[in-house]
């Protein structure tokens, strides 16, 4: 039993290392990573081909749609691949970690784009879409294909032009009034009496 457990951990660690190395080397062609993750070394041309955003530089508070395109160049539907029990896609965000999760099915020899909506907050954000496959026999989920993209969100514009102008007018108005005020106060009978 313990032996089996170590074996599973070894496979998981090995596959994670492999997938991360491949992610770095083949960022332009992520679909090719799949062949490394298939247990029987069969080449399967399925993976995340694109991760894009509806706006290149959105403003804080705007809704941004994240498009994740999954392509399936195999002759069978993604959900029916024999050695996989279930396929799902997870969109990870650096701050939220698990941002969205969705079960996917992609038809044979086709690609499908999945959409996720996110309300932008200012700063730099990293999004990673990861495809997992679940092996029911081992009761575990393994990463298969992934793609990352960085999105810079501009902060909301601060302030306006009118308020500082109004504030300057308030200052000059009060200072101006202070110059004129003594001429008025001197004519108030109560103050005149008090001065005498």
């Amino acid at each position, binding site marked *: 039993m313990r032996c089996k457990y170590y074996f599973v951990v070894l496979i998981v660690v090995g596959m994670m290392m492999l997938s991360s190395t491949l992610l770095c080397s083949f960022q332009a062609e992520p679909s090719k990573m799949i062949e490394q993750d298939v247990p029987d070394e069969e080449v399967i041309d399925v993976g995340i081909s694109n991760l894009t955003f509806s706006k290149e530089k959105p403003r804080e508070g705007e809704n941004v749609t994240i498009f994740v395109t999954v392509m399936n160049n195999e002759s069978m539907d993604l959900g029916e691949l024999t050695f996989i029990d279930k396929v799902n896609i997870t969109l990870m965000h*650096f*701050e939220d970690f698990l941002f969205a999760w969705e079960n996917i099915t992609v038809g044979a020899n086709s690609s499908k784009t999945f959409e996720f909506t996110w309300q932008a907050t*200012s*700063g*730099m*954000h*990293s999004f990673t879409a990861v495809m997992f496959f679940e092996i029911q026999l081992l009761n575990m989920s393994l990463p298969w294909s992934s793609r990352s993209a*960085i999105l*810079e*969100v*501009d*902060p*909301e*514009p*601060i*302030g*306006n*032009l009118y*308020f*500082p*102008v109004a*504030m*300057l007018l*308030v*200052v000059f108005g*009060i*200072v101006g009034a*202070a*110059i*004129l*005020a*003594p*001429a*008025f106060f*001197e*004519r108030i009978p109560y103050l005149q009496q008090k001065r005498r």
Partner: protein
Amino acid sequence: MKSIRDDIAEDLYNTWLTISFELKNHFRRKRVIISFSLAVILPLIFYVVPKIWAEFPDSADEFASLSLSFVNLLIIIAGSLFAGDVISGEFEEKTGLLLFPTPQRHMTIFIGKYIGALIPTMMVVSIYYLTTSVEVIGIYGTGALNHNMAKSFLVALVYTTSAVSVVFFFSSLLQRKITSMLLGFFSLMMILPVISNVLQFIVEVEPWYIVTYSAGLITDVFAVTMTIGGGPGGQFLLFTPDFHLGLVVMVVYTLVFLFLGILISIKRRMR
């Protein structure tokens, strides 16, 4: 008895006389030339150094934000130079013995002195912004100049009124010119920023009521994203002053310190 209209006209004329006298004084002492030179040299450093050894920032807003981060310093220097001895000088050099017994109202004397210190300080700020704007046009083209620059300029002018008021207050409170200038300078340069930082980083409370904290709005209006520590998502958030509240704080400082200064000056007696 004179009519109210004559009284007002006389007060305005007297104020104008004080302002022009103060301005002539500043020009005579070459303070204006020194601060105007600083207003040109400081922003030029931000142009010349990257031109020779590095690259300019990606956007005009980033460049302006970087260059204008030192306008606070110039406002404090210019404010201390022009307002630091404006009242204390009269007491230290005993020139007040000639000035205060005149029929001119004391209110017009002190407000004239305040405006006389405010005008050259605002001119220094304007030159700094003009130089920075020329640099932005030179690097990024005319299209790069946007309303953020105007917004920042207006905020800087409001801050100038409060900085000059604070220095004016110390000038009316203290007897010696050098002490009032130094206290005004260090309160804006060190004391208030230290209190603000302690409140922010140790007590973890927003110091919205400290004017030097609100002065951060001068560069905050550019809304330039600042990432510290590197890496995506690695944004380090500090307190940032609220635009409207920050400006109101500046105006409150301006009026409170100005009128407190005037009140103290009127009550003071020459010895």
